[in-house]
């Protein structure tokens, strides 16, 4: 039995998840006030009614739109700033400590400023998502540029490569695996930023409905919505991971 599980870790993993769900089901059915928690079976059954709640599909679309735009911007800004900082010794020594300092600040403290500047609409959520997502990407790009083996640069130079060719054919492919792991962290950051901003103040989007369901003591719908959100996050993460395996297939 033990040997079978050691050889099939997926089965063990599935078992743990199943046990957790059963524990949750039992606790929610017989031990905890239904105002606070709902059993997973009921949450699953209620998924339809979540979608049927007026404006929830639109809210999901809006949040997804905010996530996509924020992620795209975070990647673009992250790559540009990462290259600017990482490509020169001067840039690295001068700006990297500043990047690390900014990354260390809990941004939630300045969320009200974002609302002040960008309003209570999607712009503030996108902006807050971008500032959360771009830092891991900047750091990943800097690391990807810096960890290049010097011999590869020397070798390219000896064969007559121009600066642009070195950037395009040596620095860029060397950065790709690191960029993708940065993008996965960035995706988590973007989710955090967008949802935090939505929870803080929102007229649409998922954040509005999570606070509404909570205030109405409707844990079934709340957990259903959270489940949908989790599925969305897992799907996005998986997408980036697929890209990572594809573009880094040369690493054994």
């Amino acid at each position, binding site marked *: 039995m033990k040997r079978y599980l050691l050889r099939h870790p997926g089965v063990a993993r599935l078992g743990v998840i199943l046990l957790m769900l059963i524990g949750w089901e039992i606790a929610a059915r017989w031990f905890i006030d239904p105002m606070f928690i709902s059993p997973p079976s009921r949450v699953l059954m209620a998924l339809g009614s979540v979608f049927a709640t007026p404006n929830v599909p639109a809210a999901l679309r809006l949040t997804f739109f905010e996530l996509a735009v924020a992620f795209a911007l975070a990647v673009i800004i992250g790559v540009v700033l990462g290259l600017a900082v990482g490509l020169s010794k001067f840039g690295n020594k001068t700006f990297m400590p500043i990047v690390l300092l900014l990354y260390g600040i809990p941004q939630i403290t300045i969320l009200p400023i974002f609302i002040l500047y960008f309003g209570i609409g999607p712009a503030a959520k996108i902006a807050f998502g971008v500032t959360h997502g771009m830092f891991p990407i900047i750091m990943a790009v800097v690391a990807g540029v810096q960890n290049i083996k010097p011999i590869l640069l020397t070798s390219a130079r000896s*064969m*007559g*490569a121009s600066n642009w060719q070195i950037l395009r*054919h040596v620095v860029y492919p060397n950065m790709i695996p690191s960029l993708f792991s940065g993008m996965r962290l960035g995706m988590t950051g973007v989710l955090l930023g967008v949802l935090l901003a939505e929870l803080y103040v929102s007229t649409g989007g998922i954040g509005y409905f999570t606070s509404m369901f909570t205030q109405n003591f409707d844990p079934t719908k709340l957990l259903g919505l959270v489940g949908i959100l989790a599925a969305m996050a897992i799907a996005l993460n998986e997408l980036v991971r697929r890209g990572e395996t594809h573009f880094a297939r040369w690493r054994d």
Partner: protein
Amino acid sequence: MTQAATNTAISVRNVSHSFGEADEARHVKALLDTSLDVTRGELLCLIGPSGCGKSTLLNVMGGLIAPTTGTVMVGDKPVHGPMPNDIAFIFQENALFPWSTIHENMILGMSFQGVPKAERADRAQRALEAVGLDEFAGHYPSQLSGGMRQRAALARALSLETNILLMDEPFGALDEQTRMVLGEDLSVLLSRSKKTIVFVTHSLGEAVFLADRVAVFSARPGTIKEIITVDEPHPRKSAFMTSARFHQQRDQLYDLLHDEIRKSMAQSGKPKRAYEDQSSRAGPAA
């Protein structure tokens, strides 16, 4: 005089090189007033204690390092930077691009050098056949053994069709048997082409087996102490390696090197006394 000039592939004149600024603690004089002529079509080995500047000289020859003083000429052109049309490098470390297959590596190298697109695939194929790797064109470097990777690096250099190959301990990271076989292959290649090769090595046997001439370096700051000639036509067979002459020249080389290696080691700390084994003294008398 003109005869001598046309027979010289690389001419090094009074080259000195230091790393770091003169007032810095890590200022190192690597090369001191070195002059050397590499004859067209020969294989010249540079051998010497580690840190003696032989790799530095190779990089200076290829334009990868600008010397502090002195000049290098390739043919009639002064060297001021990489000369991809005249010189190809092979390094000790694996310098293949890991994200490209062997074939893509070769195409990329030729595109850097400026080979017309139409010629690249054909040249890549021929060079891979010459080193016996044509079946592995679609493999990534990480899928090949160390010896195969160095053969691929050699193929990439060959595809550039330069007259000069500069090899910096190309077989240094390989095991003894693999490097012997690759050495024989290189000797065959040399007998067929008219390439000029400068080859840095640590191995006395490799130097005698491959070289037409061996330049022996002194300890740091390095300069050429003596040049010995190995008079044996290429391609050299393994029988040469077991001949009396091979051993005699290897011993001659070792004599030349021995003092320099000691000197070089003294620069990085030397033993103060012989190690006394405490346990044998404490043990019962025999």
